[in-house]
Structures are given as structure tokens and as C-alpha cells.
């Protein structure tokens, strides 16, 4: 009986949602009075075990194999699923990265266990897990209960609080071997096409500055980018801006784009269509800059500025620069 966390790493670095999942796993394990154990997959990743321990893991199952060097859904699911079947943890968590959302359904099917995705709250009630998650584009909240002994949940990024790491902690490391199977050769990640911008990933960002059709032209996004860089923010876009070809698909926030939960979301020249709100209404604070006082975005904004974005945004950037210069 223990709480497990699949510690998502890519290119030898643990990902932010993995820290959030480890922290939540620790909290649940404490509530249950049991151990929190992590599973680490990859190739030549043993060095990450200490960092995992510092987030509260009592033990790390290390599955290190060249087949696992990059994401391979069948192989990953087999490695994790078979270990779960053998050790039978009570709860298994993973952060909702694009790997987590893709992988855990396979794992749950392999194990034959209940799965709750995109969770924003986890509780222990009478010794069982209860998961709360948004559905229908955030318009309703659903509480999920489990009938299976093994209970699996995927955590929405940026929602669960990350613990302060304690580097004096250590964890037992158990190496688990992986026997190759025919299935593994059916799929291979042959290339990673990097589109790194140097800015944070939308789903993991503390702050997001998004632009919409009101930006009028792709080159005008320069003022959004300048503000974003000053705030250490990610840049997002409405569907209208993406469909116009002004921004890449990966920037789109909303029902057919990404769902984001930053601390601060600044919507610039975005009207606030219901499909856009679907992707960002769970932001902690929302600021809207729009020249139309009746734009629906103002209904969800904590702070709305009615005005011309081409005046307001550059002025805002200038003011923030002044403040930062003063504070050195």
C-alpha cells in the first residue's frame, strides 16, 4: 500500500508538473500514513533520483533502458503498467504534460484501473481517493470516485502547490529491468522538431500575455512579446489570431487549443468568446485590455482596461520598466 508518482522527465530534466505531482503524492501519502514512491523512466537518468527524493519520495523505482530514451507509448505503458500490477500501489499520480495525458490511459487500461484526468483537487475520503475535475470546457465540476483498488489520477499543471525541496532527504533506489517485447518495435520517436521560444510553456507559465484579432497584424505581436518578456510570461493567442496565420497553433488558448491555469492571464484585443474562456477561465487573476466596454471578456476579468491596446500596452510596458529600474 503506497502512493506512487510517475516522475516525468524529458532530455534528462524533470518537468515542472512532475514536481507538483510529487508534492501532492507526498501530501496524500502523509494523510494515509504510507510511503510515497516514484517511478522514473528513461535512459541514463539515475542522476535524477536525488532530486526526486528532495520532493519527498521514500523510494524510487528506476527503469533505465535505451528503449525508454524518448517517449514510446507502448513501451512506457508496459514498463509502468506491469510494475503497478506487481506492486499494487493504492494511488498512482502523474502530471498532465502531453506525455502524461497520452500515457496514463494506456497504463490504466493495461492495469485495469480507474483513471481521472485533469484533476484540480484530490482528497482522501474513508481511505479512498476522491478526485475533482472540470468537464465540458470548465463549465461544470465533477467529483470522481473509484471502484478499483488501484486509483490513477492525472493532475492539471499549475494547480497543485509544489513543496520546497529538502535536499537532505534521500530515497532508496530500486532498479527494475525491462524485457524488450515485439510491441516496442512498432513505434519509434525518430525526431524532435524544436520550436523553443525561450519563453515558458503556456500550460506551465505563471503569467500569460495573449493577443487576439484586435492585434490587427502579426508584426504587432512585438508589443505583446515585449511585455511578456518583461514579465517572464508565455505568449498566447485567440483562435482568430491563429487562424489568421499570425501565431503558431501551439499558442492557441481555448476549447480547441490549450487549457491554461496561470496566476495571471492578460487578454489583449480578445473579445472573450465562450470557446476562448473555456481555456483560460481557471486563471487566478485575469486582466483584459479591450476598446469595447461591452466585450464579454470583462465579465471574467478581475481588472479591465477599456482602451486602445496600441496605446495601453506600450505604456504599460514602459511603466513596468520604470518600476523595475527604480527597484534595480
Amino acid at each position, binding site marked *: 500500500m503506497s502512493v506512487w508518482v510517475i516522475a516525468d522527465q524529458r532530455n534528462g530534466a524533470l518537468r515542472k508538473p512532475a514536481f507538483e505531482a510529487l508534492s501532492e503524492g507526498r501530501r496524500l501519502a502523509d494523510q494515509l500514513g504510507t510511503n510515497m514512491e516514484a517511478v522514473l523512466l528513461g535512459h541514463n537518468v539515475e542522476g535524477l533520483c536525488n532530486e526526486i527524493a528532495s520532493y519527498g519520495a521514500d523510494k524510487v523505482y528506476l527503469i533505465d533502458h535505451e528503449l525508454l530514451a524518448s517517449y514510446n507509448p507502448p513501451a512506457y505503458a508496459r514498463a509502468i503498467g506491469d510494475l503497478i500490477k506487481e506492486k499494487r500501489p493504492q494511488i498512482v499520480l502523474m502530471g498532465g504534460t502531453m506525455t502524461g495525458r497520452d500515457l496514463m490511459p494506456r497504463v490504466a487500461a493495461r492495469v485495469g484501473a480507474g483513471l481521472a484526468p485533469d484533476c484540480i483537487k484530490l482528497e482522501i475520503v474513508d481511505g479512498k481517493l476522491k478526485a475533482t475535475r472540470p468537464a465540458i470546457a470548465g*463549465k461544470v465540476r465533477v467529483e470522481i470516485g473509484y471502484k478499483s483498488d488501484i486509483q490513477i489520477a492525472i493532475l492539471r499543471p499549475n494547480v497543485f502547490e509544489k513543496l520546497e525541496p529538502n535536499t537532505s532527504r534521500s530515497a532508496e533506489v530500486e532498479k527494475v529491468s525491462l524485457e524488450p517485447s515485439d*510491441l516496442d518495435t512498432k513505434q*519509434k520517436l*525518430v525526431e524532435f522538431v524544436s*520550436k523553443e521560444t525561450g519563453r515558458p510553456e503556456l500550460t506551465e507559465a505563471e503569467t500569460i500575455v495573449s493577443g487576439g484579432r484586435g492585434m490587427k497584424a502579426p508584426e504587432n505581436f512585438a508589443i505583446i512579446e515585449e511585455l511578456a518578456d518583461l514579465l517572464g510570461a508565455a505568449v498566447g493567442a485567440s483562435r482568430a489570431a491563429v487562424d489568421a496565420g499570425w501565431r503558431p497553433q501551439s499558442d492557441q488558448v481555448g476549447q480547441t487549443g490549450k487549457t491554461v491555469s496561470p496566476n495571471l492571464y492578460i487578454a489583449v484585443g480578445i473579445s472573450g468568446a465562450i470557446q476562448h474562456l473555456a481555456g483560460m477561465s481557471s486563471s487566478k487573476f485575469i486582466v483584459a485590455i479591450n476598446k469595447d466596454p461591452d466585450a464579454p471578456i470583462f465579465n471574467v476579468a*478581475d481588472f479591465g482596461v477599456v482602451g486602445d491596446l496600441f496605446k495601453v500596452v506600450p505604456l*504599460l510596458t514602459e511603466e513596468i520598466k520604470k518600476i523595475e529600474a527604480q527597484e534595480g
Partner: protein
Amino acid sequence: MKVVVFCKSVPDTETRVKLKDNRLDKSEIKYILNPYDEFAVEEAVRMKEAGKVDEVVAISMGPERAREALRSALAIGADRGILIKDDVLDGSDTYVTAKVLVKALEKDGAEYGMLLFGQQAIDGDTWHVPGQVAEMLGLPQAGSIIKLEVDPDAGKAVANRLVEGGEEVHEMSLPCVVTCRKGLNEPRYPSLPNIMKAKRKPIQDYSIADLDLSPEEVGKAGSFTEVLSYSLPPKKEAGRKVEGEPEEVVQALVKFLKEEIKVI
């Protein structure tokens, strides 16, 4: 090569959700073909138009209204439909849904080259079923793709997954599972003649007895998870709105950012 596209009937994106007796009040909801599934149907039909695929089969599990979702898929260009409909399916979780879909595939004859899904259905928003089906069948899978190249003769597909910071390019042997999203293609608006033609395309109905499943294996009884309750998300308090000269409104905004939420 035959390919199968999975289609779900979901509430329109404009839907306002209401609750009644701790359940969704479905009385005023308008239903559509899940927008993510449209990308999957479009992709399958394009493969057929490119001569790579002989037949596109659309499968839906759902109540009678799911027939309309299948008709939408047929109007885009799918050749025939399968509707899995049974009162006892109500309350099925994603694991049961995947199990039922796998049974339907077996019943139809397993000679497919690719299974296409939408990345997610916009009601449940789980993203679960494709991966569960892929695992049950032991197939490779590429989720959330924005590019797909299929070579039926070589028995291979190459798909680009949109992930954090870039694209993962996966090479898979056929048959495989893909999940489709915006960025893959631009789904067509079906023409009126094609909508009319779709009405004459065949839709085969299956009950769970037809699929050799018993009521205990499906619905709430067969599921590993259950919905304990529904609630509406907490209402956001109406915020402030400032109007005026740019200098003034920006000062107010800076104050908000600095003093109230402390981000600068």
C-alpha cells in the same frame, strides 16, 4: 485498406450548463459531432481521396442522437456507420467505452489499417479512450497530431505530435492509433448534395448483446470510476473596469499588478 473513425455526439460549444437533481440538465442542449472528431473524419476522407484508403467506417457509441453525429461524419465523406446503442451503456466510464469499441471493431472484422480519434471529446474532456483502445489492442499510438503521412504499401505511418516546446515525430507500423486536433487539417463544410447522400449511407446498429457483452460488464456496473456529484464552478466576482486617458488607466493597472496581486 480500411480505416475507422470514432465519433461522439457532444453538446455544442455554446452550451450553458445547468444542473438538475445533481445531474446535468440536458433538456436544452443542442448536440453536434465532436469538433475534434471532425479533424479525424476529414483526415480519413482525405486519405481515401488520395487513394490510400478504400473505406472509411465511422463508429459511435451513444444514445439515438449519436446517429446524427454519424450522419455528419458520413456527410464529410465516411462510407458507412456503426451505432452502438443500448440503455445499459448509460454511466459507462472510459474504460468500458474503450472495451465496447474494441468489441465493435472485432464484430465488424479486424482488417483495419488505422484507427482515428479526436484528441478529446469536448464534454468529458478526458483524452482517455484512444489510448485505452490502443493498449487493449496492442497497437502503437500517436496522440495530438498536427501532421500525418501514411504509406499503406510499406505498412507505415509518420505522425507529428504537438507537445511542449515542439513536435515529436513518431514512426509507427500499421495498424496504429492516432488522435487528431486542430492544426492537422481544415475540416470541410459538407455540401448539400453530400448531406443528402449521407442520409442514404448505411448505419448498422449494435446492441451489447450483438457484441457478446453482458449488462454487468458495461454501464455503471462495469466501470472502475463513477461520478459522485456535479457542481457548477465557483462564480467569479465581477472585477473592476477602468476607462479614461491611457496614462490614467495604465497607472491604475500598474497599481493593481504591483499592490494587489504583486506580480511586479
